[in-house]
């Protein structure tokens, strides 16, 4: 069943950030040979608006059902691409990224052949995972709009007031018979030398 997947692979040149060290055309041709891959293309900047549009267009035109973006670290643009494929009607969890910049072109800048081979391996791994990805639904949990502040010293007092001024109900719990904490025992306070209470 997973071999019936239609994976689209988008290889980003990131200007010269990736293209200077990785032969992106060769990676693209290699990607087309991988099981499950229905479409592969090289982009100048996949994260740009035109790059994202290309993903959306390809999803529609080639009936893609899993997306691999080979570009930078997912920390950078995973949210971007998740949003893009969602807009094209795919579940946001059907995206996999291969990091061919931080973990490939940047660290193997002076060895184009090896960097290209590694990029192919990373894309291969990403495709292997992508064809096994399943749509996921995120659970939504309601939040009780009230806060508990434990401790009525200066920190707890400030927290309680800020919550309340934001319009939330606050329970301020203090073990002593009065709030004030240690600060109430101080005479003056630094650096302004004003009274503590």
């Amino acid at each position, binding site marked *: 069943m997973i071999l019936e997947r239609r994976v689209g692979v988008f290889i980003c040149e990131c200007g010269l950030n990736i293209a200077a060290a990785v032969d992106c055309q060769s990676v693209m041709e290699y990607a087309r040979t991988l099981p499950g891959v229905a479409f592969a293309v090289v982009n100048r900047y996949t994260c740009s608006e035109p790059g994202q549009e290309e993903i959306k267009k390809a999803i529609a035109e080639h009936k893609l059902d899993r997306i691999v973006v080979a570009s930078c*670290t997912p920390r950078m643009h995973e949210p971007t691409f998740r949003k893009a494929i969602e807009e094209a009607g795919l579940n946001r969890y059907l995206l996999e*990224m291969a990091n061919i910049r*931080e973990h490939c072109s940047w660290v193997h800048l002076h060895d184009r052949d090896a960097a290209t081979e590694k990029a192919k*391996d990373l894309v*291969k791994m990403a*495709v*292997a*995972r992508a064809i*096994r990805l399943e749509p*996921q*639904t*995120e*659970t*939504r*949990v*309601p*939040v*009780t*709009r*009230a*806060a*508990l*502040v*434990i*401790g*009525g*010293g*200066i*920190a*707890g007092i*400030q*927290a*309680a*007031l800020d*919550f*309340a001024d*934001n319009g939330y*109900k*606050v*329970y*301020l*719990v*203090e*073990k002593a*018979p*009065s*709030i*004030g*904490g*240690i600060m*109430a*025992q*101080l*005479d*003056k*306070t*630094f*650096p302004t*030398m004003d009274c503590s*209470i």
Partner: protein
Amino acid sequence: MTDVGRHPLIELMTYSEVKNVRGYVGNFEVTILRKARFVDEKECTACGDCTEVCPVVRPDEFEIGLATRKAIYSPFPQAIPPAYVIDIEACLGNMPLACEKCSQACEKKCIDYDMQDREVEIKVGVIVIATGMKVFDPRSLTEYGYTRYPNVITSMEFERLINAGGPTAGELLRLDNHDRPKRIAFIQCIGSRSQRRGMPYCSNVCCMNTVKDAILIKEHWPEIDVSVYYIDIRAFGKGFESLYMRSKSYGIRYMRGLPGEIRMNQAGNLELVVENLQDGSVESHEYDMVILSVGLEPDEGLEDLRQKLSLSKTSDGFLMEAHPKLQPVDAPTRGIYFAGCAEAPKDIKDSVTQASGAVARAGILLSKGEITVEAITSRIIESRCRMCGICARVCPYNAIIFDKSKKQYPRVIEAACAGCGTCGAECPFDAIIMRHFTDEQIIAQIDAILETNPMDKVVVFACNWCSYAGADFMCSGRVDKKFVLHAFKKGAPVVLVSGCHFGDCHYIDANHWTAKRIEKLKKQLEKLGIRSERLQLWWISASEGARFRNVMQMMEEIRSTVTPEEVEQTMRILEEAEAKQVEATAE
């Protein structure tokens, strides 16, 4: 303080403690124990008639024992709520021979000796912990004679002595003969920055507190001679250095080095024995009063509360943040935040800043009214589960509910699960699926990478946070031993597992389980006749690029020692071992 008492949205529960916390982010159910104060909080007008007639005298906690209070009392004049309270242990009102003087004196009849403790249930979405700290008790530093010498006092006692509302109405007095001291010394770092006694850390506030106290003395009584004995003066905050300089302009003397001992002479004065750091000679200086600048410790109740909320602490005993730099006010457990000294010693400004920060962070959850849980949580496959309970035990978030006696399958609370995968890796029966990081997906990746030229490759399992910043799963806790064995079976010469350092783990302490698991696995490899050196575990933080390079170079060195024959042998050993296991299971 009065604003808190007045605010319509703040329900103030003093003389109360958190008894129990259930639930999870957005949906906490908390039981509060409201201790009886034996005085009607709403009716009491704080007129004080009761205190006047009360015959019982006790040390006043607010004045740190430098004054007395009655059994029915107000904690201090500006107390909020302003209601009085009865110290029922001391009160004679409930004795067989009832005293009841206060009750008779109270015109509004607010006093009720039969009042009982009660429990209140509340529901909240977020919790801010602001339990503060306590000051170090210097009695253990016997060389300074605190409590043995009347004129050796702590910085907290000094605060009360110089306060106009304090026991001496702001007159600074020697505690033995009530004369005004002429020579005063402060000793810094009492209980702080010591590897031997007290705490190893810097308590953050004591230097500036002493600078302030020294200035107060000089402003009131310029003729008093003031010296400060210190290790370093840490005046790092805004306006601190100028206050420090101002103190020097008053003639306050700063003497580097802490006294080794205090001796009391026949006049009741104190002699400080201290090494002169310039020529190495031992000197003795005489003072009328010595103030010990005491450090800060976690509050006594913090440990109990920490356990109720399943939070972690750092080695100093204060609460551990979700991330020491990027999430300093968040607990690792969602929906819980820190403010003030519960997290670490800090001054008023930092406490207030952190409190506002905590509220702003909590507001992210509260304002939306609902939270979305990323779909990377774990799921139990009941048909495979044998109810061993390991998953619930290893979960750093207590997100898996399991009670062996109830004979029900473990249940994952999705809102509490952070997706670290430790349960999935530890489950001996493969009964846990990590959504979006399934065994099948990860094994497919291992297969893909090792399909061609495995000999040239080092397989790295790196966590999403410190080690790789964007990798195959969230936490090294997810690295199932099955993954490692699979990589070796597919011809990997070297396998590296890498995650955040202990204490930096983004899943509280899930990487402790990784360490244990890898150690066990190394032993297992040796037993099978596989060189355990080929499996490596390294902690690498996100800021340690050079370390990552060194580790990878080391991996390459190890890899160069592995021959194709050795890899082939490993593959054969593992396949045989697997075949045996399959046979055993079939039987």
